Structures are given as C-alpha cells and as structure tokens.
C-alpha cells in the first residue's frame, strides 16, 4: 500500500500518515488477522484487511467425506463453541435424511448448545475486558468455562474440538456425573456472572473505553449481513432460535436482549444478557429432562439404524452390527438427493449449512455460512476515524474467530 501522504483530515498536525501493520500474529489480534492501517497520529484513516491465513479448504475436503467425517471439520470453525457447530451439522443431515429426533434428545442438545453459547460469550466479553486493561475478569471466568468443558468431557470425551453427538442424538446417554456437574454449574455460575458484571458493567474505565466505539446503525448492520449478538446490539431482534426454531426451541421461554447503538458497550451488554437467558434455558431444559421417567429417561438417540452407529458391544459380538458399523463409518450408505439449508444460532451469529446432495455417499457441495466472515467486512467502516486502541477493542468485541472466518 503506497498511499503515504494521502489527504490528511482537516486540522491534522501530522505531516504524513504512518503505515502500521497490525497482525497477522500479534497479541492484540485474537486470531490470525492482518490489518494494514494508515494512521494520522493515532487516528485511523484507512485500513486494509487480509484474511485467509488459516484457510484449510473445508468445503473442498467435505466433498470427499461421508457425513460423520464432516463433523470434525465443523469443530474447527468456531472453536469457542464447537458443540453448536456439531449440532448444526447433525441437524442439517437430519433434515436431509428426514430423521425426527425424540424430545429428550432435543432438550439434551439444547443444554449442550446453551452451555456452548455461555462459554463462547464468556471468552468474548472477558477478552473485551483484557483489551480495555482488565485481566482479572478473564482469568476469573476461566473457572466456569472449565466446568462447562468438564460437562462436554463427560458427554463426549473431549473438550475443545468436541465432535459431540451423532445423527439422531448422542453417542451415549448423559451419565449421572454429567448431571451432577451440570447442577454444580447451575449453582455456581450465576454468582460468577453477577460478579463478572460487577467488575465491568458500571466500571468507569470500561464504560469510557467502550461506549461509542465501533458503533454501527441497524440499517448498515443489516446491509452488511450482521447476525447474532452484533446485530441485536444494533437494535434488531433477529434470533434464529426464535425465527426458525430447531431442536424444539419453541418449547422454551426466553427473551432476546437487544441494544440500541450497536457499539462495543452494547455488544458487551447484549452478550451478558444472553448468558442470563441461556442459563434460564438450561434450567428449563434440565427440568424437562428430569420429567422423563423409566424407559423414556433412557432415550438418547432416534431409531435410525442406517445412520446411527450400533452399540460397541454388539459390534464386537454380532456380525450384523459389525456390518452396519463398517457401512456407516465408511459412508457406504447413499444419501437421498436434495438441497438443504439449515441454520443455527451460533455463538457469534447465524451459522448456516448449505448442503447439496446428488445421492452419493458424500456431499456434492457443502457451503458453510460463517457469520464472522460476513460481518468482518464492516470492520474498516467501524474503526475509521477512531483511535487505534479502540480498533483493538472493536475487533475483540465483534467476536471474530479466525478458524471460522477462514474455514
């Protein structure tokens, strides 16, 4: 970029602009993002973004993978809330295959998805805190995230890239330990969140740093394809969970918090409010799950032998089960032909899966609608004219996840 000495704003005391290269690896960019900024003193005159540093061609890879082998790819999109991605992918498959899931499965999924949303928002909001100079909140909420990860671990065996669930349900029923851990979380977490809010929400420094920074109007946000908390902070109450309910979200009562100005502070407030709502959804879902008694309480997957792996002990002892296990793992079962778009409310916006099947064993085309790829375009518009230090806060408050952006 060779536009030194580009027209400086009226009243500038500088004689020429300075080019500053922020990123791709820099402590202030949480993820691999590069911005080549033209600065007038500390004010940003223009910026040029470069993305794609961790592009891994997921869409190409998915074209050779049977359905179950695509799930680990979705883990690596928004890795702060991978269970939501996994569930979104399984819901897409279920839509294509016409699989109906039992209510108990839906409620268990909602518990996991809302836990994931909490862990996602916790990271984002506490990182905004770090970038405004307050490290305490970040370290403090890690304890709660750890509790959430322990619940994942209990359900699926892994923590960050979870690969959780199967087509039609879960790989195993929730154990008593999982529920005990969930209860512990429900008991301890509200206090932590309240204290976290106490640290930030009315904190003078935090407010001065975030109010007015990175603001966007509702109209521009819609035109830029914003979704999720970022759109809601601008005052549009669009939420996939309400607009196109999936996994029985219609059975739950919750509010959709909205902001007004679409600035960093409103985004922070919206996320915090959403965490309270998620908590209430988890409580409702847990109550509903407890109402299943006897044989109903053992249901954790739909009855779809063509797509749901048989029990391990059967695989080792019965020929039929072994055959099915092999067929499912190797993707020997053809999918029906069709075109499906399924979206879920991810941690940072509408995560969509556009799947075209030509009747083969792998997707003919799979496109991920990655929310942060779409709204990161607005970043120059959000920060131009502002201070460099506010641009850093804006970047973290947009909840950009490089893995998702670059797919």
């Amino acid at each position: 970029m060779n536009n030194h000495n580009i027209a400086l704003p009226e009243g500038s005391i500088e004689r020429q602009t300075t080019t500053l290269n922020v990123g791709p690896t820099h402590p202030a960019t949480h993820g691999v993002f590069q911005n080549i900024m033209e600065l007038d003193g500390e004010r940003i005159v223009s910026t040029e973004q470069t993305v794609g540093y961790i592009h891994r061609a997921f869409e190409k890879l998915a074209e050779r993978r049977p359905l179950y082998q695509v799930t680990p790819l979705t883990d690596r999109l928004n890795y702060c809330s991978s269970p939501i991605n996994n569930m979104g992918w399984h819901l897409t498959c279920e839509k294509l295959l016409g699989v109906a899931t039992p209510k108990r499965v839906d409620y268990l999924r909602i518990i996991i998805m809302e836990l994931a949303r909490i862990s996602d928002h916790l990271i984002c909001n506490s990182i905004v805190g770090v970038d405004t100079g307050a490290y305490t909140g970040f370290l403090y909420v890690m304890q709660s995230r750890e509790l959430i990860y322990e619940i994942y671990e209990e359900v699926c065996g892994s923590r960050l890239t979870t690969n959780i669930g199967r087509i039609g349900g879960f790989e195993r029923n929730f154990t008593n330990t999982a529920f005990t851990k969930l209860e512990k979380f429900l008991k301890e977490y509200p206090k932590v969140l309240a204290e976290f809010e106490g640290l930030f929400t009315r904190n003078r420094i935090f407010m001065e740093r975030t109010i007015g920074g990175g603001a966007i109007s509702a109209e521009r946000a819609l035109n830029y394809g914003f979704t999720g908390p970022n759109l809601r902070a601008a005052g549009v109450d669009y939420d996939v969970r309400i607009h196109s309910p999936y996994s029985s979200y219609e059975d739950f009562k919750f509010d959709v918090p909205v902001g007004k100005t679409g600035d960093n502070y409103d985004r922070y407030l919206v996320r915090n409010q959403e965490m309270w709502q998620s908590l209430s959804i988890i409580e409702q879902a847990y109550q509903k799950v407890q109402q299943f008694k006897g044989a109903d309480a053992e249901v954790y997957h739909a009855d779809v032998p063509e797509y749901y792996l048989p029990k391990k002990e059967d695989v080792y002892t019965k020929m039929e089960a072994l055959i099915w296990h092999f067929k499912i793992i190797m993707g020997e079962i053809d999918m029906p032909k069709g075109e499906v778009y399924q979206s879920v409310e991810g941690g940072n916006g509408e995560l969509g899966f556009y799947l075209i099947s030509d009747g083969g064993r792998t997707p003919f085309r799979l496109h991920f609608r990655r929310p942060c790829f779409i709204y990161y375009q607005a970043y120059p518009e959000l920060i131009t004219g502002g201070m460099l230090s506010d641009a850093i806060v804006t970047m973290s408050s947009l909840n950009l996840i490089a893995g998702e952006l670059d797919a």
Partner: protein
Amino acid sequence: MGLTNQYIQEKLVEKFADQVCNFEDTYGMLCFEAPKEQNLKILQYLFDEPTLNFQFLTDLCGVNFPDDKGRELAVVYHLHNLKENIRIRFKVFTSIDQTDVFTASKLYSSANWMERETYDFYGINFVGHANLKRILNVDEMDYFPLRKEYPLEDQTRIDKDDEMFGRG
C-alpha cells in the same frame, strides 16, 4: 405471516414472466432460477417491492456442475425477509467459458466478500465489483480450486515418501 411461497412465485412470474423458471419447494424453501443477465433486476425487485421485502442477503456461494454443459457454474443467493420471516433461494447459471455475472455488492454490502470468495474458488467474474481479487487463497494461485475438475489427492497413493505421516 401473510407472505407465502405461492404469492412470491406469482409476483415474480407477473413481473418477469417466463424469465424466472424452475420453481421448486426444497424442504419448505422456495427455490427458483433465472438467466444470469437478469440477476440484478430480480434482486433489486425482491429488495424494493414492498410486499416482498427481501432485504437481507443470508448467503451467496458458487456451485460447479461439470456435466451440465453451458451451465457449469451456478451462483446461489439465499435471501431472507426478516419481517415476514421467510427465506428463498435464487440461482443463476453461467457457462464455464464465459463467467461474467453482475455483482450484487452495490445492493448488499455483505455481498462484497462473499463474491470475492466465490471468485476465489470458482472463478466467477462479478462484473462491476470494486475489488474482485482472491480472498482466502494466495494471490499467486492460477486455478479455481473448488471446481470439480481439481480432485483431491488420491488417498491410496503410495508414491509419496512421507516418513512423518506414515506414507510410503
């Protein structure tokens, strides 16, 4: 919730007659196609017509159908009317030798990068785009990797000497 798929179809046929075709209902979503020269007119009409009001571009991506001669590449738009909460899918097809399609980035700011991505992977030339260059791949790349003519590496190949990953 007055808006239905049938009404959208009627409005489109009324305005564009036989230019819009292949209406189908895929899992509840109305899907249709049009000649690529018409794409902007149709998007603009869907955007402006007060009873349709499709002002949110959810997704834009490319697809490659190598066997469909003259219509090898498709651009797929997913549009959403947020007020009535109804989604539609709109496709235009283009031949692989002449990949010009008008850009929607003037209408939707969000189309900017999505079109760059589509160009990057499928080589669709969005006419009128202000900055049509590669976005996720390296600038030096001289092919469009998501086209079906570029298969992934054969998983069973044995001619590679790769001690670290256990091949050969």
